[in-house]
């Protein structure tokens, strides 16, 4: 459906002919599929116990030693307010580079590497009901499944997004 749908809507002629294709890494959190741009991903690590940091947000799982560098690990499930991940051997941490910072994102499992042209990326339905959408670059359908492309920069940048307070969500709604 994806390719056909994209070709049927020649929204942007200039980008039309040579559609710029980007690669993404998709991963599961529960039943949901998310993806991040592959160029930001430095490595994928199996879960190792973290050292928790006091007085931090609940989605901050603590820090790990990545070859001598202290890297914070965030729980994507908790960030999306879907409870806490009980990490086991099969859970993975995606190490992502955000500007000068390196962070880890705890997810359930890595799913696939996707090549997606910019035309295939659909906008998030603009209902503006949930502030979580701000962290999404767009949606893409892959084999009948929806994958949300997320921007970790917005999700885990402490200065930009202090916390995803339940009040904020209510306010916007």
């Amino acid at each position, binding site marked *: 459906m994806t390719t056909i749908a994209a070709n049927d809507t020649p929204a942007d002629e200039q980008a039309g002919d040579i559609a710029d294709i980007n690669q993404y890494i998709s991963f599961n959190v529960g039943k949901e599929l998310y993806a991040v741009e592959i160029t930001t991903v430095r490595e994928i690590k199996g879960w190792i*116990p*973290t*050292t*928790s*940091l*006091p*007085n*931090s947000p609940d989605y*901050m799982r*603590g*820090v*790990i*030693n990545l070859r*001598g*560098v*202290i*890297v*914070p690990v965030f729980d994507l499930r908790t960030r999306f307010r879907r409870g806490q991940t009980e990490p086991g051997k099969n859970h993975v941490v995606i190490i992502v580079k955000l500007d*000068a*910072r*390196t*962070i880890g994102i705890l997810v359930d499992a890595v799913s696939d590497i996707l090549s997606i042209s910019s035309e295939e990326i659909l906008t998030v339905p603009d209902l503006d009901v949930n502030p979580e959408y701000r962290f999404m670059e767009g949606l893409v359908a892959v084999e009948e499944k929806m994958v949300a492309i997320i921007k970790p920069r917005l999700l885990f940048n*402490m200065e930009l997004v202090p916390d995803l307070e339940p009040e904020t969500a209510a306010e916007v709604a």
Partner: protein
Amino acid sequence: MSDPMEQFKVIFFEECSELLTSLEEGLMLLQQGDQDSETMNAVFRAVHSIKGGAGAFGFDALVAFAHIQETLLDEMRSGTIVMKPEYIDVLLQAYDILSELVGAAQRQVAVDKNYGAEAALAMKAIMENKGVAVSEKKPESPDEESQDIDSHRFKISFKPFEELYQRANEPILLIRELRDLGEMEMTLDTSDMPNLEEMNAELAYFSWEFSLVTEFSEDAIEEVFEFVEGDCELTIEQENLVTPEKPVHTNDPADDNITDQAAVPAKSNSGETVVSQSIRVELDKVDRLVNMVGELVITQAMLREQGSQLLVEQYPNLVQGIEELSRHIRDLQESVMAIRAQPVKSVFSRMPRLVRELTASLGKKARLVMSGEETEVDKTVTERIGDPLMHMIRNSVDHGLESPEARLDAGKDEEGTIHLSAFHRGGRIFIEIEDDGAGINKQVVLNKAIENGLVPPDSSLSDEEINNLIFMPGFSTAESVTNVSGRGVGMDVVRKNIQSLGGRISISSNAGKGSKFTMSLPLTLAVMDGMVVEIGTEKFVLPLVNIIQTLRPTPQEVNSLPDGRNVMMFRDEYISLVPLYDVFDVKDATHDPCEGLVVVVEGDGGILMGFIVDDLVNQQQVVIKSLETNYELIEGVSGATILGNGRVSLIVDIATVQEMTAKKTQETETHLTQVPVSMEVH
């Protein structure tokens, strides 16, 4: 770095920054009335060397300016121009322009042709008053590679008279300058040297013969000897350029017994073969070394942890080897850190000028006295104390010192004194800034704090608490906003900066007599000695320097206060017990100090506290890693480290834990005491 010229340039600019520093230092000394001819010489040499190097790279604007400055300085050191205080201002102005020009050359930016013209004119005016003419430096670029194109050979004979030495000229400087013009061979003639008994230290005995191949004209050579004209016998002859290779002939410059004065020319000859006692290394290389040693410390901790599980009887050599390795790594680490250690002078030397400028713009009079400039501390520390220190000096001049009139009225010298000092104590470096100004006006500070809503109007604070208010965010007592301070950067930022370095700052003040700021900083930001403790399932590191003793109290020794705190008797005083498990929100930790342990630590202001922990793990050196690189600062934690098992462990920042505890106690106390009052509010 493929271009060798680029490499030389890098070295040149490194040297320039050192030379500029020593130039500034020298000028400051002169300003304070230093009469030492060596100071003047140092100032001259700095400008001279910058000019020399700049010439080699063809930085014409820099050369032209430095040339005028050099000429003036040379006249000053020879005594033709008698130093006057106003000349210093001209020289300082020239210094600014020189450093700008160096900066412009480094950044490869073109400078306006007239840049610095004013300063140049001022310098020329000084010289013209004394009838000294400034030769215009020709904008030739002494490109050494092209010297074959149009070279001449000159035969130069140079015999200095004793006057030359008396005027504090040094042949070696002339010879070096000559050498810079092209390829040179020289012969030292010591035939006039008398026997040792007859030798007079005041007389000149040496003469030189030079053979110089250069593309420069005879004028350029004359210019080298311009300042010693009349003080020497000088002949310059042009020869045909047939170059038979003559070996450099240097006569052994006589006895070592000759006195200093006579040794000057001798040194100039042997100077080239003297092996330097230091080498220049790129900082990157040292940093890499420090990082590697850091990793080594971690690996060693891991080995030691593994080794501790081995039976000594079974593997005696292995266990002993690990022990030795630990010792060697520790020595290695100390030696490597020593490479990067730097005297605080590099930071202090910027301050006299700051004070000078501040006093000028504020209409105050102040003198900066510095001591302990040679105190060494890791470069990572010196790099980051500059700004806070500058701000504190500003604060002292602006808020600390009174106007000259007010000082006279108070019966003080109209010139205020700021004393900046550094010293080592207990594995830390202390920097003190003391002024003899008005001290902190506690009432003004308190009123201001109340006005800004920092403290409730009816609060009664101790003197120390009032003093510490100036470190609160949003606090400034500057009644009028000057362009010096009051730009929104307050002492709170200073304190934050210092704290982020693992440092502390405190203040003591005596109304009418002055105030004193004391900073204490770690000697390095790379490693420290720590005590690993266990709290619940987590391990934390306590800085060893703060630990006084570890003990397990009996239930009788622990008492609780109405504000919720527990106290314990320690060395005849009650100290409060700090539940670290609570501060760091650790679950499954031992709460009862009588079941766990109490680590008695010394906090800010020498206050003792008892940290409740589950157990001690071991004492070890830890490598300090920043949490901020990839995350953010955590309250109560100064950084993190990696333990032998590869896990990250947090380093406890004792002073902030103390602050957090104090704040919490105060909240409880306020709650207890103010319940009836706040009833109306609710």
